[in-house]
């Protein structure tokens, strides 16, 4: 086995195809698999990105790293670092970041990187307190160095890169069978680290090893040279569903793998993903301090609030908000929310707890047609998304960029993901809606009703985006999925079964990011099978598996009434209503169910638009929205819209009473029909592929 082989990871998400960064290192540094350690050249040429706001420290670090013969890129802002990393997906091997930075907390950056690029990250600080170091560990840093950083400490950082690759490779080889028993390696290596956290390192390395496993589809990897496996939204949903089914305590990789029944997925993949998921859950429940923003943000009714959603990670909301319809604001909000990016509150990673809050906020915000709430029936919907670390979602959301028109469905889409993450859904919903429009109210407690902004003037594509956003947010926020908790169990429902067949190729979304958390693969995002349109949209929904799932129910999918989060398209209606706030699912179901009535066609359209709109908070005009909203949140949001959507175009009557999403959807759809059209779908998803997401 050569390292080369190892490096041929299949990275579904990475459009760049094939080689992982290691590979690139290999090529750039001239590594040879077997010789990696023996090679005199290695680790020379290791591509390091160092981030520190202090210019003096940065200069010293750069010089020290150069003295180790590494290829160094320095930057003094976390945002810049992220964009550099995103631009050159495989351009760096390892990242060194300071803990305290003014524009973004080092740990947040760490999470982003972990979710999006999954590179080894070393934290640095002049502070050596146990708590801070522990934080590094829990956030997934592979090491923690005390400043001033000595050259001896830097001379060893390459081990993290090798370790990671090795683990990935191992997954390749052992996919399916082994117990991760033999990761013996290198744990002892920490010993000669000059870092101060040897023990932490050990644990970190171990953790990393586990984490690495998610990629690699063994058989094909060497030949396919695809980027490593990405936990798409859909895949993640399936994963969560399986975990929920087994019970979080009893969920072991092997059983999860069996339940998921995804060809090509290895036990190692699942194991490492599980580990991340657990981390995420833990973080969600335990780390609430970071999230204050989220809640606050959410509360902000209108656009600004989406900030918290930021957890979405880097979803580029802009992409999402492509649709013209989306009010710029919503986009901004979404972005902010989704990505925690600069726009808004960066800190969104809210732990689940917060997510709940979010939903509550959302409620106020989301309020769609207040009356409608009921319609939204399962308020639960809102929670749909949470749970799912949205890295994926955000990406998906980004992809969602909705076609302006289509958006009606969009929100739904987002919700789709949300199923699990109710939170996300709620967020999505929020996002989707143009701020002022009917915000989607997601009730935290499960009834989150997503209210889609009803601004009806223009169809607001709350759909996809909203949904996606929400999901993302929900998930993203916590970075690692802690989002699940509220929904947690329900998340299973969200699984957008890969079966959706109709859907879009799940692989379409290279959402690679989230290392562990919900890479909700976009699998066929829309379940829409029924909606032929959806298919069309397949293009766009890619990232949201949820959607696809939602689609499934096609007409009745939406009926999920209680779905709450169950994404399960098939189940939509309740299959799993599990914990996941039904709300989120409910959204889906609700919105959709109503729309179900025959509108499928419309719905699909709507959905499509939603998705394309990504953020389309708009109108989820009932039907379409409902339908597409892939279940989860989308529905909610859609519903909300339906209710609210006072769209002039939509028959007003639709809303309030019926809400049947169908009506709304249809109304929306009608409006949008013209605009939407399958074509819309197309573009939405293009955006999803993570690669496309503009950073």
């Amino acid at each position, binding site marked *: 086995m050569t390292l080369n082989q190892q490096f041929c990871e299949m990275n579904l998400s990475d459009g760049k195809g094939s080689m992982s960064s290691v590979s690139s290192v290999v090529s750039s540094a001239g590594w040879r698999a077997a010789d990696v350690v023996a090679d005199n050249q290695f680790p020379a040429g290791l591509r390091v990105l160092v981030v520190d706001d*202090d*210019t*003096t420290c940065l200069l*010293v670090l750069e010089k020290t790293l150069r003295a180790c013969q590494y290829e160094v890129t320095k930057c003094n802002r976390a945002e810049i670092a992220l964009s550099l990393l995103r631009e050159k997906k495989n351009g760096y091997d390892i990242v060194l970041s*300071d803990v305290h930075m003014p524009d973004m907390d080092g740990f947040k950056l760490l999470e982003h990187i972990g979710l999006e690029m999954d590179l080894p990250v070393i934290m640095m*600080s002049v*502070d050596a307190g146990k708590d801070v170091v522990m934080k590094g560990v829990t956030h997934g840093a592979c090491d923690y160095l005390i400043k*001033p950083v000595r050259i001896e400490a830097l001379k060893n950082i390459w081990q993290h890169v090798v370790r990671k690759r090795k683990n990935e490779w191992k997954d390749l080889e052992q996919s399916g069978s082994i117990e991760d028993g033999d990761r013996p390696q290198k744990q002892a290596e920490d010993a000669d680290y000059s870092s101060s956290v040897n023990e932490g390192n050990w644990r970190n390395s171990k953790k990393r090893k586990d984490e690495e496993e998610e990629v690699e589809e063994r058989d094909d990897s060497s030949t396919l040279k695809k980027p490593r496996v990405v936990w798409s939204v859909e895949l993640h949903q399936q994963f969560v569903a399986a975990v929920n089914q087994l019970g979080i305590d009893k969920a072991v990789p092997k059983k999860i793998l069996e339940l998921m029944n995804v060809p090509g997925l290895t036990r190692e993949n699942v194991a490492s993903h599980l580990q991340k998921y657990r981390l995420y859950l833990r973080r969600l429940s335990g780390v609430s301090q970071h999230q204050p923003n989220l809640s606050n943000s959410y509360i902000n009714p209108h656009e600004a609030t989406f900030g918290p959603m930021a957890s979405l990670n880097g979803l580029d909301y802009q992409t999402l908000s492509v649709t013209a319809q989306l009010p710029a604001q919503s986009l901004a909000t979404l972005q902010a929310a989704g990505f925690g990016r600069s726009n808004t509150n960066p800190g969104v990673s809210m732990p689940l707890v917060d997510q709940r809050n979010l939903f509550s906020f959302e409620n106020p915000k989301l309020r769609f047609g207040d009356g409608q709430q009921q319609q939204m029936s399962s308020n639960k919907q809102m929670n749909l998304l949470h749970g799912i670390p949205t890295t994926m979602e955000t990406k998906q959301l980004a992809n969602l960029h909705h076609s302006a028109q289509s958006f009606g469905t969009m929100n739904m889409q987002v919700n789709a993901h949300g199923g699990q993450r109710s939170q996300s859904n709620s967020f999505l919903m929020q996002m989707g809606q143009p701020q002022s429009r009917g915000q989607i109210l997601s009730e935290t407690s499960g009834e989150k009703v997503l209210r889609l902004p009803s601004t009806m003037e223009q169809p607001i594509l709350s759909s996809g985006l909203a949904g996606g956003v929400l999901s993302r947010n929900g998930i993203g926020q916590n970075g690692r999925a802690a989002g699940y908790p509220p929904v947690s169990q329900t998340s299973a429902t969200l699984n957008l079964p890969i079966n959706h067949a109709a859907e879009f190729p799940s692989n379409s979304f290279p959402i690679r990011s989230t290392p562990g958390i919900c890479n909700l693969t976009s699998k066929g995002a829309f379940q829409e099978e029924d909606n032929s349109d959806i298919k069309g949209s397949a293009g766009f929904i890619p990232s949201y598996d949820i959607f696809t799932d939602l689609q499934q129910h096609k007409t009745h999918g939406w009926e999920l009434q209680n779905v709450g989060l169950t994404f399960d398209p098939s189940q939509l209606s309740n299959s799993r209503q599990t914990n996941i706030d039904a709300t989120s699912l409910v959204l889906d179901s609700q919105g959709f169910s109503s729309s179900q009535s025959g509108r499928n066609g419309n719905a699909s359209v709507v959905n499509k638009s939603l998705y394309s709109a990504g953020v389309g908070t708009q109108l989820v005009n009932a039907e379409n929205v409902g339908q597409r909203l892939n279940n989860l949140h989308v529905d909610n949001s859609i519903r909300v819209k339906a209710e609210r959507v006072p769209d002039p175009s939509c028959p007003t009557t639709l809303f309030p009473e019926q809400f049947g999403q169908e009506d709304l959807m249809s109304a929306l759809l009608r409006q949008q029909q013209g605009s939407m059209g399958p074509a819309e779908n197309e573009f939405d998803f293009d955006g999803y592929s993570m690669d496309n997401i503009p950073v």
Partner: protein
Amino acid sequence: RQVSLIRQSLFDQGFLDEQFIQLEELGDDANPNFVEEVVSLYYRDSVRLIHNLEQALEKSPLDYNKLDEYMHQFKGSSSSIGAKKVKAECTQFKEFCMAEYREGCMRTFQQVKREYTTLKKKLEAYFQV
């Protein structure tokens, strides 16, 4: 040589620590005066931090979190050039911040500034030789 004597005394008197030595070792043909460059950058950059601290210390009541944050940055910067005494005072300052001991903070800050200025003079003299 005089240079080495001066240098040695800086270490002996605790003004500098081994980080400074590392900086010296980082100099090469391309950057023969790397240490000097870094020290200059430090003194240039830290003016802003000192200023922030001074302003924050004039407020009433004191925002200890902000103070701690500023000082943390300053400490990091100082440690990267090997400014031993300055760093020690920074640590002390941070402790007083944690304890929210205003008097202690004010007093220690004066010491920080004093050490900072003293070191600057000494290094300037050293580099000139």
